[in-house]
């Protein structure tokens, strides 16, 4: 009988392995393990065995039944898995995606935000001021004489009440110093207006980034370090700098910053920013307005800087015409 069991087991395992689908496997299960099945029949014959043989043969029979069951389960799982896999066969995964619809931030906003993030790492806070400014905030307090050419109606937009559209974000320096005592460390992105004829490189309106740091012992070296760090972060470590002495009424000494970097097309010096040490006359003008001496020029020094984001974005992204920035053309906006 033992031999009979062995033979049946070998045969059964082979048949299980050969089952091609679940129905064949089920038929086999009934034939072997069902009522009157072949293994079941062998179990029924246990009664015929002697007392000595019963435990040994019984054990063999149980082991055989277990291994047949296990083999059937394994085969069943394999057949199910194979069937599931077949269901996914032939799917063309190269078909286009569905539902992807992402807009884009304006390139100037993107550049502005990069700049803001860099300055924030250096401890600058943001400041703000109105587009419609008084002459005092835009010019007088910034040491710009009443007959300065920039104040002419040919160059500056005026409101009927004598105020104007700020010609630079430097007016925010004054707005900030009016109500804050040193230390002051701010940046201010914003719109500025000049009465320029519109062409590929000029708009009557553009976006500037202004910066100001006033404290005890702020030096020209700090100005240099701050701008060099900022522009290296923006353009990369290869940026080279040339601080060219220049003239602005509200800084003394004043510089224009020329930069050469691969991110700017490399090769040539590009005029990128204006900067300088705050002119003591600016502190004095604000003190007079405040009615105190919170900005004592003997005690405090400061630096200020400004640069145009439009021009920078044009150079960095190789945009040939500044008007593309204000056209609102989605074919342009979706490139950034």
């Amino acid at each position, binding site marked *: 009988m033992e031999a009979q069991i062995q033979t049946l087991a070998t045969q059964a395992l082979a048949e299980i392995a050969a089952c091609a689908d679940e129905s064949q496997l089920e038929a086999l299960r009934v034939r072997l393990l069902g009522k009157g099945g072949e293994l079941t029949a062998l179990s029924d014959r246990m009664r015929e065995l002697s007392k000595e043989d019963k435990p040994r043969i019984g054990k063999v029979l149980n082991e055989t039944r277990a291994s047949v069951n296990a083999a059937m389960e394994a085969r069943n799982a394999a057949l199910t898995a194979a069937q599931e896999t077949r269901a996914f066969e032939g799917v063309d995964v190269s*078909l286009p995606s*569905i*539902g*992807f*619809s992402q*807009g884009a*931030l304006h390139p100037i*906003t993107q550049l502005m*935000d990069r700049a*803001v993030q860099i300055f924030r790492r*250096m*401890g600058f806070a*943001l*400041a*703000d001021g109105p*587009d*419609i400014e008084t002459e005092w905030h835009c010019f007088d307090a910034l040491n710009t004489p009443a*007959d300065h*050419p920039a104040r002419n109606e*040919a160059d500056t*937009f*005026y*409101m*009927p009440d004598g105020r104007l*559209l700020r010609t630079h974000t430097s007016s925010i320096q004054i707005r900030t110093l009016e109500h804050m005592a040193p*230390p002051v*460390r701010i940046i201010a992105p914003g*719109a500025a207006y000049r*009465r320029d004829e519109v062409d590929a490189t000029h*708009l*009557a*309106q553009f976006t500037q980034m202004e910066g100001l740091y006033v*404290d005890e012992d*702020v*030096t*020209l*070296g*700090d100005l*240099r*370090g*701050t701008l*060099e*760090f900022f522009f290296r972060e923006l353009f990369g470590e290869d940026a080279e700098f040339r*601080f*060219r*002495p*220049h*003239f602005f009424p509200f800084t*003394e*000494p004043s*510089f*224009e910053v020329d930069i050469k970097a691969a991110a700017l097309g490399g090769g040539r010096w590009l005029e990128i920013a204006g900067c300088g*040490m705050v*002119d*003591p006359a600016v502190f004095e003008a604000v003190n007079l307005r405040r009615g105190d001496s919170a900005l004592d020029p003997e005690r405090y*020094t400061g630096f200020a800087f400004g640069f145009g984001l439009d021009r920078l974005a044009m150079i960095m992204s190789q945009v040939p015409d500044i008007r593309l920035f*204000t056209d*609102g*053309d*989605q074919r342009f906006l979706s490139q950034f």
Partner: protein
Amino acid sequence: MKASLNWLREIVDFEQDAASLAQLLTKAGVEVEGIESKGASIPHVVAAQVLSSEQHPNADRLSVCRVDDGSGSPLQIVCGAKNYKVGDKVLLARPGASLPGNFEIRVGKLRGVDSEGMLCGADELGLAENSEGLLILDPATPVGTPLGELFPADTVLDLEITPNRPDLLSHEGIAREVSALTGRLWKASQGFVPETDATGAVAIHAAECPLYSVRHFEGVRISPSPSWLRQRLEALGVRSINNVVDITNWVMLETGQPLHAFDTDKLRGELQVRFASEGEPFLALDGKTYLLSAADLVIADDSGPVALAGIMGGASTAVDAGTTRVSLESAVFDSAHIRRTSRRLGLSSESSHRFERGVDVAGVFRGSQRAAALLKELAQGIASGWVAGSGGERVDVGALLMGLTPVRHVGLRLERITSLLGAPVGEARVEQILTALGLSRAQDGWEVPSHRADLTREVDLIEEIARVVGIEHFPAGTRAHFSPSSEADRRYDHLMQLRRSAVGQGLFEARNLTLVSEGMAQAALGSENVLRVKNPLNEDQVVLRPEVLSGLLDAAARNARAGVKRIRLFEVGRTFAQEQVEERTHLGVVLAGSARTPNWRSATVADADLFDLKGALAGILNVAVEFEPLPASALLGLAVRVLVEGKAVGIAGQIRPSEARARDLSGTVVVAEIALDSLLSGPKRTALYVEVDRFPAVTRDMALLAPSGLTHQQILDVLNAAQEPLLRAVELFDVFTDPTGERVPVGSKSLGYSLTYRCSQRTLTANEVNAAHTKLKQRVTTELGVQARE
């Protein structure tokens, strides 16, 4: 300001070539914007006269010329040009000349005819980029004159002079700067005529003229200027007129003092400086008549204005070929005054350019003395006395004549240099720099000469030191300090978050101009109280936009015309109104075209409508957004008020089809304009945890047949008013109407709601849910008169 390198070398002996000098000046703040080579100096190229010209026997397009080059024996030259005639003076390259491009001139044969050189065009000599035919010389040019004398080689630097440095608007001024930067010495100045006593006075009726002088000359002979004078003026962009006028320009370019020459015989009576009378006409040298105002300063004789002070002389008293007596004006006028008149009349000149920026009073007599020397040398002019006058008490003429120039005392502390610049500069170096710039050491500071009107304070002297030393001397600092975030920081972050959410909603950010046309301002929602600029540049930019939609609608139209099918634009920016708060921050949105990108699984997608817009707004603002009906407007056929937490924050709607068509937009176009300021205020709220439900929810549907006019909100209000404690959510899953009236009667609509019930303490039984649901259904049907459908 154009500067001749040759001229600078005549004044200061420096070694640098043009490129290194340009670098040196640029580094010191005198930006060199261009370097241009002028003239040429090529050996064996001389002036020659064409004696004869005959057809070449073997070539149709060539001629055989005989030319006189002053050597005594005429040369035979084969020439291809046609623009000359016999007798013309031209440039001849003799054998041995080497023209630009390594072109060697040799004796040779051209189509079998001997040619002993080449007649040249301007381009072949490097005098011009492009030219046609031969360069024809002045008939007075002596034959044999070398090219280098006719067109002296020079380099012209184009300098950007900042408005604080009018002292650099002359060659002497630039030379002074070069001397300071190179440490090289100043050569002796050119000839000046020694001063005599004044022969009279000029009446000055305006404080705006601190000093006015006129020097008289007799026996003047007008002629063309010698070529050295003419060439140099022309190289610097000044047209040569005649010897007298050229001398005035020369002296201005040399010393910075503008001069004007009158023909003495055309003047009537004494000159005076006065204000014009209102409406007084003045015919200027440019041939135009200007109507003057009482604020314009003029030089007048008995007949009226003969010059617009500091800007331009008059046509009636101009020096011409018949002039024999000259009155030479040298003066100083108030810079602000000249600027105002020049701008008002739209008339400027080299002279007004200098007066506007400031002319050194100490240079007035020096300039006219220098001119006197040149007039004697080049026009046989004999000085016959001079007159001067001063408006106000500001100028000590006597002291000026003695060469005593006014100086200013400015203090300077060495420690202040360190505290402003960040590193010390040694006392010896400071002394060297300031001395080289023409300042002299005084007690507790420095004496500043009058030509440096920009140096009035300690910080101005420190600026000079920083400029000359160079910023590299001061180590880059990396100081920072902690800055608390400001209100502007919070606003910025909030606005950036809104922008990013809008991008996530598939929108593209536009940044439109804030100055718009009247039409654009009105075409949007139509605001009153708009702000306008007083002096618009053109009619496209007159109004400060009252809404961001003004520009967005225009941009949408441009996109439609460019063939963009799905327009999804937003802008976050400033708007303006003549109200208590003038400047606000608005969000604008325009959606046109399909709500989602059509794709291969569903080729047709409905256009975005008001409800897509509602979803987009909620997504951008990150809060629930409610709409409330508004009367239709000129732009919006379907208009709604936008509410956030019960507060009105803006307007939205669908544009009338006619308005959409007018912008070339097809299909549904929805827009929104949201005022953001009230949504931005206050610090960011931190969310608080609410326990998540642990027991299962049960949903029951409620199908209602309601009159068309009944709103979803009315149904919601009734359901909410019941305050059923187990009700957790109400979801509308279907709205159905049937125009045929078959499935739903006309005038009614079918609404399908799914109501979710849940208890946070236990699992609900079916009976509890059914009881609650039935109660709610009854309330809705009885209170709203709707019918429940099973």
